[in-house]
């Protein structure tokens, strides 16, 4: 998958003391939560690199953002997060195009429910782990190295309430998100001492394409815009872990503390 043509570096939006710019990368920005966050952060004045596989969706989003802000605040880079070896060079090019780097948000996530508590599908499980977890590590590992040496920066990773407990419904997805949450926690423990904030976001149900895959009821479902707003607020406060909607914090607290002897007999 090729990235969009390199914009001449001189065409990049110049930062000055009176127009300071924060520069961010959003991986998984073509729709849903990623797109909502892109709009939200652009409104806060961020200059953004938007990454996803689907170039047309990205282009449309960039046009919309740039039109609204009346300057080039968003650039599109088409990219498949499982092409791990392409990350270092693409990252370097994006940082040069943006003129620095202050924020990286990893939103990309896929969910292939096996379709029943007696169904198993290794191929789908592998794809979920490769995208949701290894894809995140491929990006966040070089980003963490840069932020650590710069002693500045912010990382936001979108995990899920699904990672808080292994459940009967979707072992592969649970695992990918649990792995991501643990990876983010480890990065936080490494980077906080270097002045870098790592925020783990655990959304519950959200009205996105992924919700269509949900099996059964979807309580407390929120719009991606509401989730983006929650994330922005948490970013400003340099929080560590948030649930969105916030009620999930209490729900998951109860679920996490349900004894296994009961939990393994439940069919959820």
């Amino acid at each position, binding site marked *: 998958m090729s990235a969009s043509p390199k914009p001449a570096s*001189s065409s990049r939006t110049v930062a000055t003391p*009176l*127009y*300071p710019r924060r520069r961010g990368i959003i991986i998984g920005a073509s729709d849903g939560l990623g797109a909502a966050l892109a709009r939200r952060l652009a409104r806060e004045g961020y200059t953004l690199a938007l990454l996803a596989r689907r170039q047309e969706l990205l282009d449309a989003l960039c046009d919309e953002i740039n039109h609204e802000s009346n300057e080039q605040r968003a650039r599109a880079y088409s990219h498949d997060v499982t092409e791990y070896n392409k990350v270092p060079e693409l990252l*370097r090019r994006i940082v040069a195009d943006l003129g620095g780097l202050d924020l990286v948000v990893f939103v990309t996530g896929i969910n292939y429910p096996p379709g029943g508590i007696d169904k198993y599908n290794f191929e789908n499980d592998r794809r979920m782990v490769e995208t949701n977890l290894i894809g995140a590590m491929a990006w966040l590992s070089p980003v963490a*190295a840069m932020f650590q040496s710069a002693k500045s920066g912010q990382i936001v990773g979108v995990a899920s309430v699904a990672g808080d407990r292994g459940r009967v419904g979707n072992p592969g997805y649970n695992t990918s998100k649990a792995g991501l949450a643990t990876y983010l926690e480890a990065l936080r423990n490494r980077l906080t001492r270097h002045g870098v904030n790592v925020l783990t976001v655990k959304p519950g149900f959200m009205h996105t394409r992924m919700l269509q895959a949900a099996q059964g009821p979807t309580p407390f479902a929120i719009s991606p815009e509401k989730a983006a707003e929650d994330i922005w607020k948490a970013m400003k406060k340099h929080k560590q872990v948030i649930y969105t909607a916030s009620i999930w914090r209490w729900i998951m607290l109860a679920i996490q503390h349900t004894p296994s002897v009961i939990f393994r007999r439940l069919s959820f």
Partner: protein
Amino acid sequence: MSLTLDNTFTQLENFGHSLRASSYCFRPTRTEEIYEVFRLAKETGLTVTARGAGRSYNDASLNGGGIVLDMSAMDQILEWDPASGRVRCEPGVTLRQLWQRVEPDGWWPPVVSGTMKTTLGGCLAANIHGKNNFQKGPIGEHVMEFTAMLPSGTSITCTAEKNADLFYAMISGLGMLGVFTSITLQMKRIHSGLLSVDAWPVPNLSRHLRDLLDNAPHYDYIVGWLDATTGGKHLGRGQIHGARNLKDGEDPNAQQTMQLAYQHLPDRLFGVMPKSLLHYFMSPFLNNLGVWGINTPKYIPSARKHTFRQSHAEFHFLLDYVPNWERSFGRGGLIQYQSFLPRETAETAWREMIELSQRRGLPSYVGVTKRHRPDKFLLTHTVDGFSLAMDFKVTNKNRATLSKMLQDFDRIVLHAGGRFYFAKNSETSAEAARAFLGEETIVKFKKLKQCCDPNNLLESDLFRRVFG
């Protein structure tokens, strides 16, 4: 071993702490290492900017997302000849190293900035001026020779005669044509470590400028403090300091006063309070009311002409007198707006600007005036006239209004035939730069850049802002 970008990502700031950008930072110690960095830049498709001490108020030494060559480790004084006063230095040598080396032998750098932390490479790239600009010109006029490395790896030596085009363009060229690797300067003879300083008040702008103009010929250095918080008939009031070098014999203890111990800037206030803490105590006063409250009592006792003797270091390096003073401007930092105006139009233009700033509630907290003359360097900022430098505090609240005001300032200055200084102003647009430099100058500069750096390897945030 070949270089990599690993573990080099560093967040850099400008002098005023008002702008930050992260870059891959390298700190060469030898000329060959500069070439290694050029090679890495070509391999990775990144641009390179040289950085000295990072004492520019804007983005001159920032290259966000690209490579920054931190030249501060190339800081050897290679040759010093106390007989002729010629010194050959690496570009990372600071003015502090330089004056401390030459003064005990009876010499002083011909042109110095308000801080001694600047490096010679940076001084040449910006072609800095001092309080003696009206007499001695910018630092470039005292460069006997320099060697620079071009992005191709070729070293080129320039003097005012040899490679003259490049000599006059690389000095003032913002580091966009090559990276200085060695600089030969002619020092200026002194006969004492002291200057004789006259200080006197000026009640308004018209007197302020007339006194600068009329008195400059009688002094070696002249500088004015302008209280930009006062309007009406007192607008432009302030105090002028004129200083002259003592002649041979005027200082009976010349040998002593030229020793470093005598030039030492005290690091404690009243012998007790560490000056490094002073900026914390200054910050509560750095608002409209506080500055007015300081400027007024500062003006009143100055209203008496007096003469005193002061060491060179104390007179010149006011910005080093309070360490980290720029921190007292708070989180948003500060920016400086310096305009250079011909003597005929200066008064009207500055009156308009100062009135505008007061009307909009954005008065400058520090105003400094100087007397200038033009020079021959390609991207020159000087005119036959004066300069006024104004410091503004940047806050999240005032950014938009301040930006609007500086755009109005730019229009006033350009209309009055003025110029800007690339080491200072951070908001000069490409259009404003074109207007004061002239199309012809820009074409010439770009042509030289095309020759020296055909792949545009050398780029700074400033270059992209002004020439991009």
